[in-house]
């Protein structure tokens, strides 16, 4: 008879909402598996699926302000990234700890990070809606998303429709 240890843990995702996590230790288990009970297939469930399938995207970045060859790569989790900025054919990830240069393309990041709250707001920016502190129009009537790190990103008028649709989908899925 195997040992069955139940460890109730609260899994904290990038949502403030908490999810109960039960861990069972079974020495006789032939095939390790994960069962997920959910009310609807929302982004956080897809993120768990990605983690279980080892498909959770992570990015390796080098500090943007240093010579690329001199510094070690840092692994960045999507939850750590405020926004991505594509400047001079280079992609940069802005995090709390600094700016990192990524070797991916903005389009591939957009595809990979859809379930992680990332939405395109201009030709060169992909923002993480979970990191937005405030969204408000400026005096010049441009709408800006402000982040915890004090940076602001403009939401381009051409991407307004996509942005609105993304928020609606995320809202529907985040029940």
């Amino acid at each position, binding site marked *: 008879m195997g040992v069955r240890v139940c460890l109730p843990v609260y899994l904290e995702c990038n*949502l*403030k*909402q908490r999810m109960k996590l039960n861990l069972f230790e079974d020495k006789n288990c032939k095939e390790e598996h994960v069962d997920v009970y959910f009310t609807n297939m929302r982004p*956080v469930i897809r993120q768990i699926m990605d983690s279980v399938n080892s498909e959770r995207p992570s990015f390796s970045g080098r500090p943007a302000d240093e010579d690329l060859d001199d510094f070690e790569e840092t692994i960045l989790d999507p939850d750590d990234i405020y926004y991505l900025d594509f400047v001079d054919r280079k992609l940069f990830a802005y995090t709390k700890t600094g700016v990192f240069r990524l070797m991916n393309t903005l389009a591939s990041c957009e595809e990979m990070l859809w379930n992680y*709250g990332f939405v395109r707001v201009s030709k060169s920016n992909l923002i993480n*809606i*979970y990191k*937005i502190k*405030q*969204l*408000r*129009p*400026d*005096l*010049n*009537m*441009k*709408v800006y998303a402000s982040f915890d790190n004090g940076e602001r990103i403009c939401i*381009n*008028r*051409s991407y307004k429709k996509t*942005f*609105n649709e993304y*928020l*609606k989908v*995320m*809202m529907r899925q*985040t*029940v």
Partner: protein
Amino acid sequence: MKKYLKTLLMYVCISYTMVSVSGAVVNIITGTKTSNSNTLIMFGLCVIASFVLSLNKIFDEFSPLLMIVLQYAVVMALCAGFLFLLSLIDPISPKGWIEYFRSITVPYIVIAGIYYYCLYDEAKKQDRIIKDIQNGKK
């Protein structure tokens, strides 16, 4: 191109209906009368204004405020040119030019104000949705 022309025609129809209905209401209240040439000029001005406003994609890189100012300047210049051509056939009095300036500027400022209010309101709604998503509740 076909889609653009369809949209432009829709803008012209909407703006002309709004302008002529408002004009009719003002005429009833003030007891003034309008002539056939005024009605046609009004239509011409609506076509010019709708055309310039439909080019908003060109001004996409600018801020909305700058876009409004630039579009206003272009509309004023084109309408002035249109009226100047008409004045060669039927001269326009100085008062007529002031009226022209007023009848374009006033609706333009009102519409710009409405636009800003809608923008502010929409941003507020989006901000609320983002907060709800962040808190994981509907």
